[in-house]
C-alpha cells in the first residue's frame, strides 16, 4: 500500500464547483506532477466543507490547514511553498474574524458549536470512494440490521429515536415506516425525495454530493424494515453533480454486493434507481413526486389515502427526505438513546441548515436541534456584514415564516417554531438586515408561489395570484385598509383549503410578516412611504 505523506482535500460541492474548484484541482494535480510529488501527495475531491462563500476551499492534511478562495494562479505557490517546502501560504489561510489563523478548520467557531451526524463524512472522505465510506464505519449499520435485527426491531429503533422527517413536515419517521410495514402488498417501495425545491435550501444537494452512500445505506435499511425490495431516488434534474455521484455510488455498492440480490449473503435483495425531476417546485410534494415517477403530470393527489399504504403504482410506499435517510444508519449503529441525547425532547438529533443572505459565513452547517437562532447567526454565521442591524430571518425556505428580532433567542426546533407561526422546515436560513423593505420581500415571495402553483386546486391557483396582485398594488402606493383585511383573510383560508403543502404554506410568510411587521406595512398603505426607503415608494410620502 502506498504511503502518502499528505492528503489535499479539494471541496467539490456545487458552490465550490461554481467558484472554479475543478480548475484548481486540475492545476493542483498538474503542478504536483511537475514538481515530482505525485507519489507523496494524494489529491482528493470531497464533498462540501462548509464555508461556501469562501470557495474554492482546500484542506491540507496532516497539518489541517484550510485555504480559502484559492484560484488557479495560487496553485503553484501552494505546491512549491507548502507541499514542497512545508511553509504555509499565509495569505490564503482561513482566518477567523480576529485575523487568527485557524490551524485546523475544526478549531474555527464556524465548526465549533456544530455537531456532525448527517455531515459526518462530508468534506472528510472522497464521495466517489465506497472504500472511504466503509472506512468510516459505512454499511456497518446495514450489516447489523440485516444480521442481528428483525425488520420490526429496525422500525422500533427508528420509532424510539424520535427521528422526524427532515424535509420540512417533521412527521415521525418510525411511524411512517410502521404504516408501510403493516400494509399487505405484493410490492412495496422506498422513495428518496431529493427534489429539494425550497429556495435557499441546498443541504440535500450537498449531502448527496458529499456522502451519497449514507443516503443509499438509509434506503436499503428502510427497505429491509418495511419489506420493500425496490427504491427510487427522485433528484432534481439541475443537480447534475448529485445525480452523477449517486449513480456512481449505486454502481459501486452493486459491484460490492451491498445492493442488488442477496445483500451480504443474507438473502435480502434491494434495487435502487434514480429518477430525475424537471424543476417543478410542486414535485417536492410526496404525492406529486409519485405521480412524476409514474410518468404523469406532477400534481398532488388527494390525501388520504397516504403513500404509506397507497403510493407508487398504488403500492405501499415510504417517501423520506435525503437528510432523514442519512440519519438512519447512525441511529441503527449507535442506538436510539444516543440519538435522543442530542437535540430536544420532541425534536431529537441534529439539523442541517444552509445559511444565506446577509450573513458573513454563508454555507452549510449542522447543529443540535434547539440551538438558539442568535447563536447560529452571530456565532456560527459570524454575524451580519458591515455590522448592520438584524431585521428578520426566514426559516424553512420561501414557505417558512419570518422571524423578527424578538425571536432571536428562540430554540430552533420543530414545535417551538410551529407554536410561533414559523416552521423549521427544510433547513433554509435566510437572514436579512435592516436595509430591506418588507413589502418588497413579501412581493418576492408571492411572485414565487403564483409562478409555482400547479393549478390543480382552486384555492391555491387563484389565491396565490390574488395575493401577488394585492401586494403589488400596495407596493405601487394603491394599497388601502381593505387590502390588508383581505390579505389576512385570504391568507388564513389558504392555510387550510388547498390540497397540498404548496398551497397551504403559500401564505405563511405573508401572515407572519403581517403579524410581526404590521407597522411597516401600514406605513406603506396609510402614509404612502417606505420607512427603510429602499422600495420604489421612497422615504418621502407619495403625493396622490
Amino acid at each position, binding site marked *: *500500500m*502506498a*504511503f*502518502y*505523506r*499528505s*492528503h489535499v*482535500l479539494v471541496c467539490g460541492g456545487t458552490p465550490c464547483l461554481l467558484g472554479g474548484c475543478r480548475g484548481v484541482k486540475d492545476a493542483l494535480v498538474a503542478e504536483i506532477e511537475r514538481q*515530482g510529488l505525485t*507519489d*507523496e501527495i494524494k489529491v482528493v475531491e470531497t464533498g462540501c466543507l462548509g464555508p461556501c462563500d469562501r470557495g474554492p476551499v482546500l484542506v491540507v*492534511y*496532516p*497539518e*489541517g490547514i484550510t485555504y480559502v478562495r484559492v484560484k488557479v494562479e495560487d496553485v503553484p505557490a501552494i505546491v512549491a511553498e507548502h507541499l*514542497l*517546502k*512545508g*511553509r504555509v501560504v499565509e495569505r490564503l489561510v482561513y482566518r477567523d474574524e480576529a485575523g487568527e489563523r485557524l490551524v485546523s478548520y475544526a478549531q474555527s467557531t464556524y465548526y465549533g458549536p456544530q455537531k456532525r451526524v448527517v455531515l459526518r463524512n462530508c468534506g*472528510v*472522505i472522497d464521495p466517489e470512494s465506497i*472504500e*472511504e465510506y*466503509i*472506512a*468510516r*464505519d459505512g*454499511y*456497518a449499520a446495514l*450489516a447489523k440490521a440485516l*444480521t442481528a435485527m428483525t425488520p420490526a426491531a429496525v422500525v422500533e429503533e427508528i420509532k424510539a429515536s424520535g427521528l422526524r422527517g427532515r424535509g420540512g413536515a417533521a412527521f415521525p419517521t418510525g411511524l411512517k415506516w410502521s404504516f408501510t410495514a403493516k400494509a399487505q402488498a405484493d410490492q412495496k417501495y422506498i422513495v428518496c425525495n431529493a427534489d429539494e425545491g425550497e429556495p435557499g435550501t441546498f443541504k440535500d444537494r450537498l449531502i448527496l454530493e458529499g456522502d451519497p452512500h449514507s443516503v443509499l445505506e438509509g434506503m436499503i435499511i428502510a427497505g429491509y424494515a418495511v419489506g420493500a425490495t425496490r427504491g427510487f431516488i427522485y433528484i432534481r434534474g439541475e443537480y447534475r453533480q448529485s445525480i452523477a455521484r449517486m449513480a456512481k455510488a449505486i454502481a459501486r455498492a452493486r459491484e*460490492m*454486493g*451491498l445492493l442488488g440480490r*442477496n445483500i*451480504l*449473503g443474507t438473502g435480502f435483495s434491494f434495487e435502487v434507481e434514480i429518477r430525475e425531476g424537471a424543476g417543478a417546485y410542486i414535485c417536492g410534494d410526496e404525492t406529486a413526486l409519485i405521480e412524476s415517477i409514474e410518468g404523469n403530470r406532477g400534481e398532488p393527489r388527494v390525501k388520504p389515502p397516504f403513500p404509506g399504504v397507497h403510493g407508487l403504482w398504488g403500492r405501499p410506499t415510504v417517501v423520506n427526505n435525503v437528510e432523514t435517510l442519512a440519519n438512519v444508519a447512525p441511529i441503527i449503529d449507535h442506538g436510539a438513546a444516543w440519538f435522543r441525547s442530542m437535540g430536544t425532547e420532541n425534536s431529537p438529533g441534529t439539523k442541517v441548515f444552509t445559511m444565506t443572505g446577509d450573513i458573513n459565513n454563508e454555507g452549510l452547517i449542522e447543529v443540535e436541534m434547539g440551538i438558539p437562532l442568535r447563536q447560529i447567526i452571530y456565532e456560527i454565521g459570524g454575524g451580519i456584514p458591515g455590522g448592520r442591524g438584524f431585521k428578520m430571518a426566514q426559516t424553512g425556505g420561501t414557505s417558512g415564516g419570518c422571524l423578527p428580532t424578538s425571536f432571536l433567542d428562540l430554540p430552533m426546533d420543530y414545535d417551538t417554531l410551529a407554536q410561533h407561526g414559523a416552521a423549521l422546515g427544510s433547513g433554509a436560513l435566510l437572514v436579512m438586515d435592516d436595509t430591506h423593505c418588507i413589502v418588497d420581500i413579501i412581493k418576492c415571495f408571492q411572485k414565487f408561489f403564483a409562478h409555482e402553483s400547479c393549478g390543480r386546486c382552486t384555492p391555491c391557483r387563484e389565491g396565490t395570484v390574488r395575493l401577488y396582485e394585492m401586494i403589488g398594488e400596495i407596493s405601487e402606493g394603491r394599497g388601502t385598509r381593505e387590502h390588508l383585511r383581505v390579505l389576512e383573510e385570504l391568507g388564513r383560508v389558504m392555510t387550510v383549503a388547498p390540497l397540498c403543502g404548496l398551497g397551504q404554506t403559500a401564505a405563511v410568510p405573508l401572515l407572519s410578516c403581517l403579524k410581526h411587521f404590521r407597522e411597516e406595512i401600514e406605513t406603506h398603505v396609510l402614509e404612502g412611504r417606505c420607512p427603510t426607503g429602499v422600495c420604489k415608494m421612497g422615504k418621502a410620502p407619495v403625493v396622490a
Partner: protein
Amino acid sequence: MKSLEELARIREEAKRQLELREGTGGPRIVIGMGTCGIAAGARETLMAVLDELGKRNLNNVTVTQTGCVGLCEQEPLMEVILPGRPKVTYGRVDANRARQIVASHVVNGNIIGDWVIARE
C-alpha cells in the same frame, strides 16, 4: 461482497488510508525542506522515509516538512517525535540514515546517538 467478514476486512484496509486526515496521535517525523535542505538531498531523504513507512505498514506515522531552521550545514535535518517523548533532531540524514532511523528509533524507540545533533 458476500459476508460480514469481507466488509470488516475492507473497512480495516481503508481505515489505514484515512488515518492521516484524522490526527493519529502517533509518531511524527519532520524533515527540513528549506532550499538548503533540498539542495543537501532532503527530497531523497523524504522519499526514503515514505518508502520505509509504506513497506512497514506504519500508517499512524505523520510525516511533515518544515523550512530552514538555521543549521544549514547539518541538512538534511530530520526530527522524530514519539508520543509523550521529547523531540530528537538528527543531522546529515541521507536516504540510508533515514531508513535506519525509521527502523531503530520510530519502530523500536532506540535513538541513534551518533547522528543526533539536538535534543529537547
